[in-house]
């Protein structure tokens, strides 16, 4: 099959074009560097099927970050049949800079002038025919978003792929003409492929090139000695970059006719930025946006309407009968939206999904199973093992989707890149660049893509540090642990407020991340603060289709996971908790004789300093099972709770009134566990903290292993996660139980930091 590669600057619409061409649903965002790996799709409307390869965005063919190396290697080594160079017409000069470099490779190419619609909307005009003539390369105007000009583009690309093309350079008129010519002839003599491209890069002194052609270097240095420029001396890098841009602004840019002659036009984006990244208001606006997202997702008092207008609860209004049930079906729907206060969209979505859909459906199935006359163990396996486990995970879909939707909107609109701009100075204090913010915030969605996105970071040590702290940005799968345990605490102890506990735990995660970055950058991962040079993309309204695609993908993934890994884990856990070592079936009340109990009781003492170990007595091991199952996937924690909670209720002598163990949110399962084990609030909070900061899940571990590159760094990372979770949760537990411990911990922390600072100072003095 013939292969077309899509190459171009970051954020110029490559992935949008890729999706339009191949009908894929790859993730598109509005910040530079969403695509960090190449991917393939098939375009079928040509004479023969074409494999289209989407490459990460690059500014030049001299790579700067790991993901840029991928793009360069692909074009040079895999030899696509045609390179489709996507050029953002609204940002012509800088985009053509890359074009002038790809031109030097012996590969057929066409130029796709993208975002023509945005350009023409602004009143500017571009003469594609003239550009084509001057470049001597086919140029096609397209709009990837509106799917205009795509067939024409592919037709021209197909034609071009049939004709061989020799590299050309725009430096042919510069002072370097002879130097490049000589090197090129020398390389051709050595049968090097793409001699012109390598000649230019060698003259430039490109790192990759220099190490690849060591034997040619002495000769080039000889050539270089004969050369002298008045302005630049012998700074060949500057000479070449300058030559390219001079040629572009002299020969190519004039094809663009701007409506306004002014050098610096103020666009709508700039006007919006005046407010959004304002010197004073920038940070408050950012905090407000974050608060608004959490409020819209979790608040049970939307816009505080309930408190402001002092609205009556459903009970006051007489819509709830004495048993606490709605008087009719309509009221049940009303209860999803309102009870004394209007719920926020996230909560409404959650209530409807759980009370009206998932609860009804699974309740119906469980009822059917119970009345089917199957033996006790079979109903137990289906109802408590499988259904409780899976439904407890599925019930969190609304919250995860709502949160994810808001983050997608932020990303799509271009605001995320501004946050990096606003926060860079703060990040620098921790030894990171503002760019590290993006993978971190992605971590709130899922650690796996976040870890992969660290490829946009140029500095190796910064990358390692960022990968290690990404799991502390609590991902969607950890949300159920948070809400269920927080809900359980409020319901059982009647203290606090579930919202505040949830926010607090998110903050604890962030704080842990900051502290560990500080410590790592001061000890094992010392290094200069990496530079921060980043493009700020123009704002645009989020694309509805795009948002829906993101959500659909997320849903698919989540449901798939619930019905594979989670269902398998719950079955295993149920079996291990319902059979004794001699494979005798145990009723729910006898779980303490089970295989699982035997094994996890061995591990129980390890967790004593964390508040959920031996002090919880004979049933305390249920927390250990949850934590260990959580290492596979964090959804397992709550699925395990649902399965084991059902058993604990059955444990003899329990008096749990008004408890609905089959409720979908896991809160009642937690209540049962609290009652049986007698765990206190500090232990529960420590339990959340442990799950938030420990080894995230198999998928994230595998990704981190692949991205970290070195075995020792990977092992250290695992150790780091285990150690951090152990320290953080024992801190939470001890301080929560005996507040005076805070003094000890503060002293220890201060000691560690002081030690690092003093040691680093001494090292500096010695140097």
């Amino acid at each position, binding site marked *: 099959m013939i292969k077309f590669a899509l190459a171009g600057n970051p954020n110029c619409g490559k992935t949008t074009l890729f999706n339009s061409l191949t009908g894929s649903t790859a993730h598109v965002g509005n910040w530079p560097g969403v695509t960090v790996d190449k991917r393939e799709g098939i375009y079928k409307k040509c004479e023969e099927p074409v494999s289209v390869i989407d490459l990460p965005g690059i*500014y030049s063919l001299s790579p700067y970050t790991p993901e840029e190396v991928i793009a360069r290697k692909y074009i040079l080594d895999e030899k696509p049949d045609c390179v489709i160079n996507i050029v953002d017409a609204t940002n012509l*000069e800088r985009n053509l800079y890359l074009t002038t470099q790809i031109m030097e490779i012996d590969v057929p190419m066409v130029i796709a002038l993208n975002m023509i619609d945005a350009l023409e909307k602004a009143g500017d005009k571009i003469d594609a025919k003239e550009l084509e003539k001057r470049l001597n390369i086919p140029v096609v105007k397209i709009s990837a978003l509106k799917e205009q000009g795509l067939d024409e583009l592919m037709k021209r690309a197909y034609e071009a792929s049939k004709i061989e093309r020799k590299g050309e350079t725009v430096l042919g008129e510069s002072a370097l003409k002879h130097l490049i010519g000589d090197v090129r002839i020398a390389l051709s003599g050595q049968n090097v492929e793409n001699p012109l491209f390598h000649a230019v890069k060698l003259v430039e002194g490109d790192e990759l090139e220099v190490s690849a052609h060591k034997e040619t270097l002495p000769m080039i240095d000889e050539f270089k000695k004969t050369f002298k420029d008045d302005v630049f001396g012998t700074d060949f890098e*500057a000479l070449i970059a300058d030559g390219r841009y001079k040629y572009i602004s002299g020969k190519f840019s004039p094809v663009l006719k701007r409506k306004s002659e002014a050098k610096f036009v103020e666009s709508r*984006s700039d006007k919006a*930025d005046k407010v959004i990244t*304002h010197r*004073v208001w920038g940070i408050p606006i950012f905090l407000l946006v974050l608060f608004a997202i959490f409020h819209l997702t979790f608040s049970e008092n939307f816009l505080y309407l309930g408190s402001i207008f002092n609205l009556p609860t459903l009970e006051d209004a007489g819509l709830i009968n004495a048993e606490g049930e709605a008087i009719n079906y309509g009221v049940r729907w009303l209860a999803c939206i309102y009870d004394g206060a209007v719920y926020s969209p996230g909560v409404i979505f959650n209530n409807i999904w759980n009370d009206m859909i998932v609860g009804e459906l699974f309740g119906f199935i469980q009822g059917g199973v119970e009345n089917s006359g199957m033996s006790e163990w079979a109903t137990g396996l289906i109802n408590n093992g499988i259904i409780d486990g899976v439904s407890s995970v599925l019930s969190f879909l609304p919250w995860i989707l709502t949160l994810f939707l808001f983050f997608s909107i932020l990303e799509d609109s271009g605001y995320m890149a501004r946050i990096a701009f606003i926060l860079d*100075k703060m990040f620098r204090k921790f030894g990171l660049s503002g760019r590290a913010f993006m993978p971190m915030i992605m971590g709130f969605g899922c650690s796996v893509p976040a870890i992969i996105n660290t490829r946009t970071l140029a500095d190796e040590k910064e990358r390692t540090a960022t990968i290690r702290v990404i799991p502390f940005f609590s991902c969607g799968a950890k949300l159920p642990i948070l809400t269920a345990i927080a809900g359980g605490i409020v319901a059982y102890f009647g203290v606090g407020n579930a919202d505040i506990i949830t926010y607090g735990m998110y903050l604890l995660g962030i704080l842990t991340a900051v502290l560990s970055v500080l410590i790592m950058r001061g000890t094992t991962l010392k290094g200069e603060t990496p530079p921060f040079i980043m*493009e700020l993309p123009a704002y645009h309204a989020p694309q509805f289709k795009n948002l829906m695609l993101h959500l659909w993908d997320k849903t698919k993934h989540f449901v798939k996971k619930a019905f594979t890994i989670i269902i398998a884990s719950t079955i295993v856990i149920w079996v291990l908790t319902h059979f004794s070592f001699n494979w005798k079936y145990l009723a729910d009340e006898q779980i303490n004789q089970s295989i699982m109990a035997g094994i996890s009781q061995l591990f129980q003492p390890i967790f004593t300093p964390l508040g959920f170990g031996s002090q919880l007595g004979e049933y305390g091991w249920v927390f250990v099972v949850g934590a260990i199952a959580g290492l596979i996937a964090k959804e397992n924690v709550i699925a395990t709770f649902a399965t084991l909670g059902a058993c604990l209720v059955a444990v003899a002598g329990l008096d749990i009134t008004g408890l609905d163990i089959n409720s979908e949110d896991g809160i009642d399962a937690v209540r049962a566990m609290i009652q049986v084990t007698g765990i206190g609030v500090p232990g529960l909070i420590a339990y959340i903290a442990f799950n938030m900061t420990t080894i995230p899940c198999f998928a994230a571990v595998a990704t981190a292993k692949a991205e970290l590159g070195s075995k020792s760094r990977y092992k250290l990372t695992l150790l780091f996660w285990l150690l951090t979770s152990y320290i953080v949760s024992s801190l939470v537990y001890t301080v929560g139980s005996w507040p005076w411990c805070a003094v000890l911990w503060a002293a220890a922390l201060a000691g560690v930091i002081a030690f690092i600072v003093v040691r680093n100072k001494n090292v500096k003095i010695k140097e």
Partner: protein
Amino acid sequence: MNKPLNEFKVGESGIVKSVSGEGKIKRRLFDMGITNGAEILLRKKAPLGDPIEITVRNYELTLRKTEAACVNMEVK
């Protein structure tokens, strides 16, 4: 008058005279279009005073003051 880009005030513009600095940073600045003769306008500073946002070759770029110090400018 010549001065480095990091000493520019908001709204000030100028022409790049030369770019100095360590290898990788210089390379990146070139790639982003900061080459001799390019016109730069300092659009704004971040809420904490650093980094800065500039317009160069008709698009918005953000960089830190330490990187901006590598860019020598002629004030217009």
